[in-house]
C-alpha cells in the first residue's frame, strides 16, 4: 500500500475524519472543503511526530490514546472569529434586549458556538460600558463544542493578531493587560461571561429562557436535518419574542418554521408563534 504524502488527504482519511467530526459535533466537511483537513491537522501531525494523515487515522483507530479524537475534533472545528465581528449586529443586540429591560428583567444572552470567546467578550464590554449609565448587565452564557476553544475563551488570552482584529484600541487599553506578548482580558471582564462546553447537536441548551441567542457561522456546517433540530432547540430555549442572530450569510428561510425574519430588527430572526395573528384572522 502506498502511503499518501503529507499534503494530500486519502479517501480513507477523509471518510474517517469526516465521520468523527460529524459524530462528535454534527458538523459536516463538504468534499470541496476537504483541503481544510490537511491544513487544520498539520500542527497535530507535527505534535505527534507523524508524517501522514493516514498514520493519524491508524493512531485514532488504534484507540490506545483517547485524547487523539478530541485533538482531531478541536483542530477541525472552524474557530474563525474576531472582536465585534460584523459590528452593526452588536447595536441590534442592544435593541433586542430592550423588551426585557422594559419589563424590568435582566436580559439573558447565549452565544452558541462562541469559539475562542471574542464574541461574548465583545458583548460583555459593550454592555458593561452601558451599565455604567445605570442599565442592567445581561447574563451572558457562551458555549462551544471544542474543549480547547472553551479553555481559550475562559482564559481570555489573545495574541497580537487576534487582539487587533475588530477591537478598538481604547477598549483594549481599558479591558486587557499585556502579558508575555499576549493580551489577557481582565477579571472584571471575564467574570461577566460564563463559558461552558456544550454540543449543540447532542446536549440540552443551558437552563433558563434566553432573550437573544447568537449562533453565527456555525449552522452552515450542519446537515439540513440536524440544522432543523438545532433551530427547534433554540426556539424552545427562548423567551416569547426572543431574537436569533445568525451569520451574515445564513438564514432561517427554507430551513425551519420555528423562526422568521424580524420585522423590527433587520437581518435578525424572531421565534414564530409569538407574533400577533394577522388582522384578518383576528377579525374572523
Amino acid at each position, binding site marked *: 500500500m502506498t502511503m499518501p504524502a503529507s499534503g494530500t488527504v486519502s479517501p480513507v482519511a477523509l471518510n474517517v475524519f469526516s465521520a468523527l467530526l460529524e459524530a462528535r459535533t454534527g458538523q459536516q466537511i463538504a468534499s470541496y472543503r476537504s483541503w481544510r483537513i490537511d491544513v487544520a491537522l498539520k500542527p497535530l501531525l507535527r505534535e505527534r511526530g507523524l508524517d501522514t494523515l493516514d498514520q493519524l487515522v491508524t493512531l485514532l483507530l488504534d484507540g490506545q490514546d483517547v485524547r487523539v479524537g478530541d485533538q482531531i475534533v478541536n483542530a477541525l472545528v472552524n474557530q474563525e472569529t474576531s472582536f465585534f465581528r460584523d459590528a452593526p449586529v452588536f447595536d441590534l443586540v442592544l435593541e433586542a434586549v430592550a423588551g426585557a429591560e422594559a419589563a424590568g428583567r435582566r436580559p439573558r444572552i447565549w452565544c452558541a458556538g462562541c469559539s475562542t470567546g471574542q464574541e461574548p467578550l465583545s458583548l460583555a464590554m459593550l454592555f458593561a460600558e452601558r451599565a455604567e449609565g445605570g442599565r442592567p448587565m445581561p447574563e451572558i452564557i457562551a458555549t462551544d463544542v471544542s474543549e480547547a476553544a472553551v479553555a481559550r475563551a475562559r482564559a481570555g488570552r489573545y495574541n497580537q493578531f487576534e487582539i487587533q*482584529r475588530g477591537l478598538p*484600541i481604547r477598549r483594549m*487599553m481599558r479591558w486587557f493587560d499585556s502579558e508575555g506578548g499576549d493580551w489577557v482580558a481582565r477579571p472584571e471582564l471575564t467574570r461577566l461571561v460564563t463559558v461552558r462546553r456544550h454540543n449543540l447537536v447532542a446536549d440540552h441548551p443551558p437552563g433558563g429562557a434566553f432573550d437573544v441567542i447568537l449562533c453565527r457561522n456555525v449552522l452552515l456546517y450542519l446537515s439540513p436535518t440536524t440544522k432543523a433540530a438545532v433551530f427547534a432547540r433554540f426556539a424552545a430555549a427562548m423567551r416569547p419574542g426572543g431574537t436569533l442572530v445568525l451569520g451574515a450569510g445564513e438564514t432561517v428561510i427554507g430551513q425551519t418554521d420555528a423562526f422568521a425574519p424580524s420585522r423590527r430588527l433587520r437581518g435578525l430572526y424572531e421565534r414564530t408563534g409569538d407574533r400577533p395573528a394577522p388582522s384578518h384572522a383576528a377579525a374572523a
Partner: protein
Amino acid sequence: MKTCLVVDDSKVIRKVARHILETLDFTVSEACDGREALDACLASPPDVILLDWNMPVMSGMDFLRALREAPIPTRPKVVFCTTENGMAYIRAAIEAGADEYVMKPFDRDTLESKLQIVGMA
C-alpha cells in the same frame, strides 16, 4: 477614493502598507519621516495617516503633536503603526491625538480592521 499617507522610514514597510492599502481602494502617498509628512499634510491633508513612531528628523509622536496644532482645514485620522507595543506607548499616542494603534508586525486583516474602526474602510 480615500487618501492615505504612509509615514515610515522603512521602505519595505511603506511598500507592504501601500500594497495592502491599494487593495482597499486607497490612493497612497508616502513620507519617510515626520517632517516630510508634515509638509505633505500642510500642502494637502490626507483622509488617514499610517504613522511609524521611531523615525529620523522628526519622530511620529512629534509629528502627531505638530499635526494636531497645524492650521489645516480637516482632521486626518491618525493610526499609529509601530513596534512600540507597550501600554505606556499606546496610552501616550492616544492622549496625543492618535485615533487608532496598530502593533507591528501587522497583516492585511489587522490593517483593514483598524481602518474600519476609524471609519475609513
